């Protein structure tokens, strides 16, 4: 009985701790949210003490969404994410499927090589020189092609395809289907969950990618949202959110609230996509990596 009380006390402590951890996770995000909706005049007066602003205001958001720089960067990021995800999925799934078919010659060597590329990376410079020699500097393709396919995802997807019964394939081939038709008409429809999961992971990765843009893109008109965000955040000027966003003055909200509004806007797509991502966490996507 004593044991029982002690254990239920432990259980309560456990729950309390978990709640605290959740709060610690959420508070920074909440703070940013609160700041972003703060009325500019109130911010100037109270500084950074606001967890509960008196007046809510959309001034920061309205300003950001009116600048060409911000809109440009958003379009660039959306474009790269959409196109990148589609192409990445196509290349990853075809490669993974092919590697899952035992009749592919050189299959084992290819898998070994892919694994090796995951363990050894020659570094920034060789990749930079390659992109330069391909004349892709300052080209949007430099944000997609060098990172087109993740070796991890290929290996994980291949494990998934390994489980597709060969009878399906054989039956279709008997009917005269080519491998490509088998892939598109039979295998893909069966793998939608897996494709969706990796698609979301790719999308988030493209959306968040920052360093490649810094490395390969020089033209401010081609900045991605993350690059713009970083320039805004580092700029510590108090009059505007830096020349990073626009040259106008006078009516612009204080730098801090603008920065926070930008952060929130950059996070929204992730939040939208998040519930869909959640559904796939517990499924074989992850278990494949533990067992495989």
């Amino acid at each position: 009985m004593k044991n029982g009380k002690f254990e239920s006390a432990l259980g309560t402590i456990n729950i309390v701790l978990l709640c605290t951890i959740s709060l610690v996770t959420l508070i920074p995000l909440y703070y940013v949210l609160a700041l972003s909706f703060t009325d500019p005049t109130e911010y100037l007066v109270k500084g950074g003490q606001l967890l509960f602003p008196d007046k809510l205001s959309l001034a920061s958001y309205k300003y950001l969404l009116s600048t060409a720089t911000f809109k440009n960067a958003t379009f660039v990021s959306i474009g790269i994410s959409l196109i990148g995800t589609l192409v990445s999925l196509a290349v990853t799934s075809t490669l993974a499927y092919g590697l899952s078919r035992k009749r592919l010659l050189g299959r084992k060597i290819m898998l070994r090589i892919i694994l090796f590329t995951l363990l050894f990376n020659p570094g920034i410079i060789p990749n930079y020189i390659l992109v330069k020699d391909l004349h892709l500097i300052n080209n949007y393709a430099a944000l997609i092609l060098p990172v087109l396919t993740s070796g991890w995802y290929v290996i994980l997807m291949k494990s998934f395809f390994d489980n597709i019964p060969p009878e399906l394939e054989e039956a279709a081939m008997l009917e005269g289907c080519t491998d490509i038709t088998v892939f598109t008409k039979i295998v893909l429809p069966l793998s939608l969950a897996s494709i969706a999961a990796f698609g979301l992971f790719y999308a988030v990765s493209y959306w968040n990618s920052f360093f490649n843009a810094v490395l390969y893109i020089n033209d401010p008109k081609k900045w991605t949202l993350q690059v713009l965000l970083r320039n805004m955040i580092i700029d510590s000027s108090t009059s505007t959110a830096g020349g990073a966003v626009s040259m106008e003055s006078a009516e612009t909200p204080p730098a801090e609230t603008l920065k926070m509004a930008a952060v929130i806007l950059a996070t929204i797509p992730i939040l939208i996509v998040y519930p869909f991502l959640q559904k796939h966490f517990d499924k074989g996507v992850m278990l494949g990596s533990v067992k495989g």
Partner: protein
Amino acid sequence: MHLSTAYQQKDVNTLIDYNTKKKKKIFTSIKQNIFLYLLVLPGVLYFLLFKIIPMWGVLISFQNYSPYTGLMHSEWVGLQNFKELFANSDFVLIFRNTMAISLLNLVFYFPVPIILSLMLNEVTNRRFKNTIQSIVYLPHFLSWVIITGLTFVLFSQSNGLINNLLVSMGFEKYNFLTNPKVFWPILTFQAIWKDAGWGTIIYLAALSGIDVQQYESARMDGASKIQQMWHITLPGLRNVIITLLILRIGHIMDVGFEQVFLMQNSAVSQVSDVFETYVYRVGVQNGRFSYSTAVGVFKSAIGLILVIVTNNIAKKCGEEGVY
């Protein structure tokens, strides 16, 4: 004499027959499966072009590379770049910084997902568990740019939330962001905030694979919760923990580049320069291609050796390796 040459001739003929038959087999196999090969072609091309070809870039570190003369015609200087690296006082600095950040990570970050997953595992209410999971998984999907932004706004000395709290509790404002003494711990906190929740996924999956009956029989034998955890749960996690530990050690040189790059400033440069930021600065910004490639190659080579060594050690201890 005649007999042996006759046998030798027969062997040679058999060998030739075998080789041509083998080549024919390969050709027919490719022809039969041509569409399969077409399917994998884009992926293969990607790996060849963007993964294999840059590996040849390793050669640049042995040269005095210039973009004008290219890989083929640049002057060969052997180990000179590496010698220069090891003689450079910067090297000690970046090595120390990289190791310090990685080790702090290993000691403080690595256990957190394990503990967190054990805590989550004890929760019986499914809805509560799922809610907590949703919350702690979220930061993993935020970019480092966003997390740096959050850090700046929270820890800012002038009007950050944390400093305001300190002041209201009677303390003085503390410089978090341009202070070399706390740079490394802040990086560790960021890493924990971002990825500890996400890291629980693998452990939770392993935990769900432990046989429930073991707990039942342990309880019937009178084992307390703590004893159950020690004798059943933790051994069940052993494999996963060791595998992940191997991977982590193998990646000890890979300090999160974006994270450090974004958090760096001139005040903390002594403690914040790591291998990859050094390569970026010296290579891309200052154009010293050969030297910086040597730095990058050194770092990657050490990482590779570490993974191989730790993998073999794990196998010798009876665990499944990573490959």
